[in-house]
């Protein structure tokens, strides 16, 4: 975990990318949180879609790790919310589900990064890393465009 690409890129704690972990299973929520923290990210956690939407409305995340099957509002609901209000964030989502990719595809109309539970820690970090890179590229481009 410590030697994965992107680890220790030298961001200060406050400047570290911000991640959102959404899962109704406490053990998994905590696991993903700790994995990402070790990777140098700041992490918020939400235990269902409703909490996730509240978080997303008030912070810009570099990556959202999203479970599908959750009470109150499920992963599909969160994606629908993103598609409507924060379409750029759709690319920064890693869906993780204990349904296989095929079954998840059937239930889930969005094309996103997808990892199947149970996952290898390295796989999770690779997908998260790609999102974080995309987010920072987007931020840089935006910075270039606006001459401030």
């Amino acid at each position, binding site marked *: 975990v410590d030697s994965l690409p992107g680890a220790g890129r030298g961001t200060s704690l406050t400047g570290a990318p911000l991640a959102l972990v959404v899962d*109704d299973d406490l053990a998994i929520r905590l696991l993903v949180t*700790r*994995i990402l923290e070790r990777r140098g990210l700041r992490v918020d956690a939400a235990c269902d879609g409703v909490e996730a939407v509240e978080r997303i409305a008030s912070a810009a995340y570099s990556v959202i790790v999203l479970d599908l099957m959750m*009470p109150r509002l499920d992963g599909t609901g969160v994606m629908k919310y993103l598609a409507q209000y924060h379409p750029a964030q759709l690319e920064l989502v890693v869906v993780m589900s*204990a349904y296989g990719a095929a079954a998840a595809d059937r239930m889930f109309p969005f094309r996103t990064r997808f990892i199947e539970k149970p*996952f290898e*820690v390295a796989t999770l970090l690779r997908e998260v890393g790609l999102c974080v890179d995309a987010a920072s590229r987007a931020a840089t481009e935006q910075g270039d465009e606006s001459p401030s």
Partner: protein
Amino acid sequence: VSLVTSHTLPIVTVLVRQSKDWIGARQRAQIIAASLGFSLQDQTRTSTAVSEIARNAFEYAQGGKVEFLAETGMPQSLLVRISDQGPGIVELDLILAGRYRSPHGMGIGITGSRTLMDEFAVDTRIGKGTTVELRKFLPRSAPRITPEVLGAMATALSRRPVDPLEEAQHYNQELLLTLEELNRVNRELQAANETKDLFLATVSHELRTPMTAILGWLQMLALPTVGESMRAEGMKAIESAARVQARLVEDVLEAAKVQSGKVHLELTDLDLREVIESMWSALLPAVSAKSLLIGKSIADGALPIRGDRTRLQQILWNLVTNAIKFTPEQGTITVSATTGGGHVSVAVTDSGEGITEELLPHVFERFRQGENSRKHGGLGLGLAIVTHLVELHGGTISATSEGPGKGACFTLRFPLRA
């Protein structure tokens, strides 16, 4: 072996001497079955079974007779006795065991007829003859067999001539009905199959979830630089996930046991109040994770029933944990118990998510979960297991809900011990 009981009235006897006679026997079986109130499907089953055995008597024993008898004791039934004085059936045991193979299709009539009827008895003596008795129970909705019913039947039987063309048309219609029935059964099987597929997907999802926590945390704990607090956190997560997984496996095994009828109760005289109280004390720690208002209201005096203490606890635990699962924070859950009308009733009422009108009639079926409940996790087996255990106690379970968001109430009813 004979299926005859003491309340037997003769309807008609048909002699089988020519090939057209077994067709006549079939036709009469059809008329009799119809007058007795059998469904179209059962009329066909009965007339087919009768004609197969009558044809056997004609082909292998040069004829015999078919007696139709009404059995008026409850439950009412139609009894058909087909007897001949032929050579007897040498291979009967093999035929009945389904192991007899004949190039001419011999034996198929016997095994086929047996599956079409409710009861089947055959008595064969080598060199002396064979008697086959077939019984079909009347549907519960059928009227009592009275002399008037038999009189009307006699008129119908005397009126109808054997017309081969008409008979062929009739067979055709029966065949069509049978095909329709086959299609219906096929559709039912397909639906059952889909439910099973969905269940398998659910089981795999539910088992993979704790497995994710276990495998992930093990990978984390294997890292060289894990601090003491994270190690403790990880161990706790692994333990709780492993327990979840063990419980899931337990539920699947329990459901399989229930399904195959292998659950046996250890019945004792007990007071259901004690069972509720002991479940209650085990419940409080489970509720503390969520802020819910839970209460109980139990009528004064004993709640005497006959039951299996462990299983009753399992039933109550299941209903209450279900209520906890589907009731959001700040909600209420009430357990109440009363006696009356020869029953002890226990109701578990919650202010939770409720049950949709469409799901309500199906909540006790195996694998059934609402779209909403699936998102809460679980296998959809709990209520099916509970229902079976309640029924083993001679009790009933029912569910009511005003609809989504309006809570639900599950009511158990056990016979009051005298």
